[in-house]
């Protein structure tokens, strides 16, 4: 897979404050790239550098094989975290204006806006002023404006904040569809559920440094602890628990099941395989539930941040 955006050794200071130190990321084409990190880690600064709003002190950015230059703004669609629209301007006029700033002709802009407004069933908003719309409605307009010029690279900073679940879902589906149609998406958030659902790749930034990056599946593979969750039934559950704890490293587990089971998390040694565990359990109990514990992004996030804070 080729790379659409490559940022190399980016550093940026604001006076004494280090916003980014030596951060490099590669964003593969047609992927959704999650830029994760706690508040104030430096995500927004990195995004602003990619958008040429701020200049890096050190490092360079390459977009689609070329060093970043002013003309590139028309290939990028950016939905900032701090977003808003001109309150007293009409929806249609405003969308046309912003689209033209991104290099579309008036006619192109009008045509595409009509398409999107019909798709979202909001054509009757055209002559309303932004101040007459609710926050969620304004966000929809903002989303349309961001993607209207069909940019190669879309950057969403916390795109779901301010949306109700239904509209958040609508936007999520749109993002996935845009990816499928060939766009590349950088997606910055500290909300991990959306990362699981959307991201192919992630980079984790903490205290101005990148502390983790790569393919989400690879990362999960790397972070799994060879732990399995089991639900067992037997005539004597406490005897069974003793039996297992004698052989394996166990801890209580909590999951929903129909049976009144013994629920355990079993941590295997590196030398042991799930098959060993299954063979042992099979001989001693009736197995209702057997699943590998795959760390979710949230766990990886918290754990990595903790390890790096020490």
């Amino acid at each position, binding site marked *: 897979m080729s790379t659409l955006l490559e940022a190399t050794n980016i550093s940026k200071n604001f*006076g004494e404050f280090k916003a980014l130190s030596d951060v490099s990321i590669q964003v593969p084409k047609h992927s959704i790239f999650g830029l994760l990190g706690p508040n104030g880690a430096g995500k927004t600064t990195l995004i602003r550098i990619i958008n040429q709003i701020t200049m890096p002190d050190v490092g360079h950015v390459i977009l689609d094989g070329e060093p970043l230059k002013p003309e590139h*703004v028309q290939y990028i669609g950016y*939905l*900032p975290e701090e977003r808003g629209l001109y309150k007293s301007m009409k929806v249609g006029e405003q969308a046309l*204006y912003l689209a*033209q*700033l991104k290099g579309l002709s008036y006619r192109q802009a009008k045509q595409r806006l009509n398409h999107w407004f019909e798709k979202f069933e909001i054509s009757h908003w055209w002559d309303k002023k932004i101040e007459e719309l609710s926050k969620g409605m304004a966000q929809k307009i*903002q989303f349309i*404006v961001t993607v209207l010029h069909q940019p190669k690279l879309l950057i969403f900073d916390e795109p779901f904040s301010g949306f109700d679940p239904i509209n958040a879902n609508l936007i999520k589906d749109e993002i996935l569809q845009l990816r499928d149609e060939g766009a590349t998406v950088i997606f910055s958030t500290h909300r991990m559920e959306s990362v699981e659902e959307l991201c192919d790749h992630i980079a984790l930034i903490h205290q101005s440094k990148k502390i983790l990056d790569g393919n989400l599946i690879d990362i999960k593979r790397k972070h799994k602890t060879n732990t399995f969750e089991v639900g067992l039934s037997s005539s004597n559950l406490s005897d069974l628990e003793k039996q297992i704890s004698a052989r394996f490293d166990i801890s209580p587990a909590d999951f929903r099941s129909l049976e009144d089971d013994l629920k355990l998390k079993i941590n295997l040694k590196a030398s042991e395989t799930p098959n060993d565990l299954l063979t042992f359990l099979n001989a001693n109990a009736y197995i209702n539930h057997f699943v590998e514990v795959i760390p979710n992004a949230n766990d990886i996030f918290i754990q990595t941040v903790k390890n790096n804070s020490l």
Partner: protein
Amino acid sequence: MNHLPLIIKREYLAKVKNKSFILMTFLSPLILVGLLSLVAYLTSVNNEKVRTIAVLDEAGFLNEALVSTDQMIYENLTDISLEEAKKLSNENNSYGLLHVPHLPIDEVSSQIKFYSKESPSLTLISNLESKIEKRLGELKLKKLGVDLSKIKAAKTNVDINQEDYQGVKTSKTVSFLKLIFGGAAGYLLFMFIIIYGNLIMRSVIEEKTSRIIEVIISSVKPMQLMLGKIFGTSLAGITQFAIWIVLIGVLSVVSSYIFGVDISATPQQELMSGAVADVNTNAELQAIISEFHSLPLLNLVVAFILFFAGGYLLYSSLYAAIGAAVDNETDTQQFLMPIVMLLVVGFYVGFFTSLEDPHGTISKVFSYIPFTSPIVMLIRIPFGVPIWEQALSFAILIFTFVITVWIAAKIYRVGILMYGKKPSYKELIKWLKY
């Protein structure tokens, strides 16, 4: 990509379509002309009132000195005592009673009294005083045996004819006209900067508070946005000014037609016409007209446009930077103070030093300092400033403008993305290094 025209268009339309802007545009001339008409009307009503003044001249000094007019009737009382006269004039509803006691002419001057129900108007008293002074003076001269007709014959009216070494004639009146001309130009710039500078500042703050700014500057350079804002707002300002001038003109004509009131009869205008009042003779009028033609009109117009534009742009970039530095209008005060001070200093120094000496050291110096030069220069130019001086001053102005825009753009670039705390001057300087 050059989006400047697009931005200018939006800024212009956003201002022009704004309801309060439209209201201001059409209401201000209405209010102004309305007020002026009212003042003119009231003044004329006041003047039309006929006042009667009873005069008890016991010594008979005044005689024909007090002549009744349409608005003022002098009623001579004879052969009654002061008490009776007071009672009478009170009963007759006279405006007042002037009493000149029966005393020798050398003592009478400090004993003259005016009785009235309410305290009398100042102009009326000073009017009476000057008439009586003149009369008593004449009487005293007569007593000393001086022939009044000789004094009248000796009276001369001196009017110095001014002419420069190149033979261009000028006069006091024309100097006055020049001052009006320059003062008006300077004042116009002063007002324009304050009104539309503020408008620019507010529109920058609006972009910050509505948080659209980041979306915009991911498409255009902050410098372009700033310049677009300045130009768009200026065009809106010019539109508004043009409408004002036309409307005020039309409304004045209409109101003077309807109310029969001449607006040019307002106090300020009277003051002005008082100064021009010397213009009695035809010759002098002609001198003025020829003088007006000999004013460096082309130079005036060109300089007006250049200095107006330069000065306005210089200040408006500062206003834009202030808007970017703060989050809301209440925080702007500490940054606005120095700007307004500079403007006020520029205007008053320009006006009063030109009144005294348009080519004096102070007004010369101030016409080079870029923050005061546009106003001071505009005031000085009608008095004749060598072209090279104008060019130098303009060059300094433009040079400063470029530097200011650069600094303002830096502050703007950083400031528009800063929220929260109001920055200090120290922090603003730090921003320049980001």
